[in-house]
């Protein structure tokens, strides 16, 4: 199994969720994060002094999936999250050695 970790633009979350549902992914976990990267932050002003906000709001989507569909999942996220503009984000694939569904004690791919 793999953990597909995608960092995307917040307003793309809805579309990514739908894209994943379509290919049968039934679950995901979403985290509010701040991103730093090529896409530079904007400068704000407060009481006359300027300052730059380097970290931009992003959303991190964690999806655990079976080996077989990893490719499809990455594809789905990629096409759903893409705007073509800088700051679209990244997808990382990380190995999962074991998975458990708390409610049922199921483990392995069945747990996802």
């Amino acid at each position, binding site marked *: 199994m793999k953990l597909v970790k995608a960092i995307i633009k*917040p*307003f793309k*979350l*809805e579309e990514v*969720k739908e894209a994943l549902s379509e290919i049968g992914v039934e679950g995901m976990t*979403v985290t*509010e994060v701040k991103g730093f990267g090529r896409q530079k932050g*904007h*400068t*704000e*002003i*407060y009481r006359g002094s300027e300052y730059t906000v380097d970290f931009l*709001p992003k*959303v991190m989507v964690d999806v655990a999936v079976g080996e077989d569909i990893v490719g499809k999942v990455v594809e789905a996220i990629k096409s759903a999250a893409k705007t073509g503009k800088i700051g679209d984000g990244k997808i990382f694939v990380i190995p999962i050695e074991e998975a458990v569904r708390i409610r049922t004690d199921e483990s392995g791919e069945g747990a996802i």
Partner: protein
Amino acid sequence: MIKKIAKSRWALPLTALLLIAAFSPAFGQEASDVVEAVEAVVTAAEPDEDFLALQTQYGVTFDFFTVSNLWTLIAAALVFIMHLGFATLEAGLTQSKNTVNILFKNVFVISMGLLTYAAYGFNGMYPGDFNGFFAVGSPITSADYGNTDFSYGGTGLCMTGWSDFIFQAMFAATAATIISGAVAERIKLPSFMVVGTVVVGLLYPISGSWKWGGGWLDGMGFYDFAGSSLVHAFGGFAALAAVMVLGPRKGKYLSGGRIKPILGHSMPLATIGVFLLFLGWFGFNGGSVLSAAPEAVSLVFVTTALAAAAGALSSILVSWTVIKKPDLSMALNGLLAGLVGITAGADSMGPWAAVLVGAIAGVIVVFAILFFDKIKIDDPVGAISVHGVCGIWGTVAAGIFGGYNVLTQIIGTLSVSVFAFVTTFVLCVIVKATMGLRVSEDEEAEGLDIGEHGQEAYPDFQVASKG
């Protein structure tokens, strides 16, 4: 509400009408009673020079004048606080990424409103004798505004010109504030500033003069005690026009008629706003008596409070049965609807009539909000329904329960509403064509706080993206 017109020959009869109305115990009243009463007061009101002399001998003005003047000033302060009410209500019912912008607009509106009204609006709205349709305004001057011997406003007006002005000025800014809520989260700041300034500075005084300035509507016997039409319907329909030119917020109306509500970010702010508006309304309506006449002011307090309460309860009932949930935002709008509804006739009906008027307003507002959403008129705070629709209802209700000619009332409220709608529509079209009316899609998505102000309202807090 009778203002400088008091200067005109209508002063006493109208004052009388006002006082009588206040006495009117129950739902309606015979025109005949009114006429008699008018006679009564007219004769009764010849000032007794001796008494005036006796009083002024102390460097003290006629006490009733002093009390009335003081009440008008306190009422002005209460109306002022309504602007904080609007600011928090609008901020609460919109997203946190647009909060700085909303607050800024409200600070601007009250400031701009006071100055334009002093520079032009006041004398344009209360020109004394004029053609009844339009008068050019002019700056207030110090001449005779401070007099306390009735030489400013005539015996009908127990206040100084300063008090008359400041009370009226606090009203004026309201019009633009009503718009501010309806166009929130997508209008360009400079464009809003232009629209708001023209509406408050030029348009509001025109329709205002038709009635309170002693213009044509006043001539035909139209009655609008504290402004269900002249202030609220005016603002509500100006808002409707602005919203129609501006269009809905992105993402609110989905394909297939589905509506994706855009949630307000703070219910406590919204609730604070409504309570402050309720408080301010005691000045808005109570002060519109234009004197401290006990029976009138106290009746107005009672009808105002009961209508607000009835509006809240009926909207709770309706939203609970129709929407299946006791919706706080609907209860808040219902309370305001009750207040807008009673405003035109607060001095002209008994307590139970007021309850009825408020309750009906509370029902109307719920369906109005649902209706406007259905036809894709996107009004984040419900300003069009609360002020526009219920403003019309209130004016008609003043006819039904206050004993005024209902047809005249309808003619009056419609002419004001149409005037507000048409002129604001044209204005917005022009602004759109010249400087643009709406922020870019990216700015709308990111929020106007960063886009227009480069500031955040809550930098310390972690914001959640809508799933």
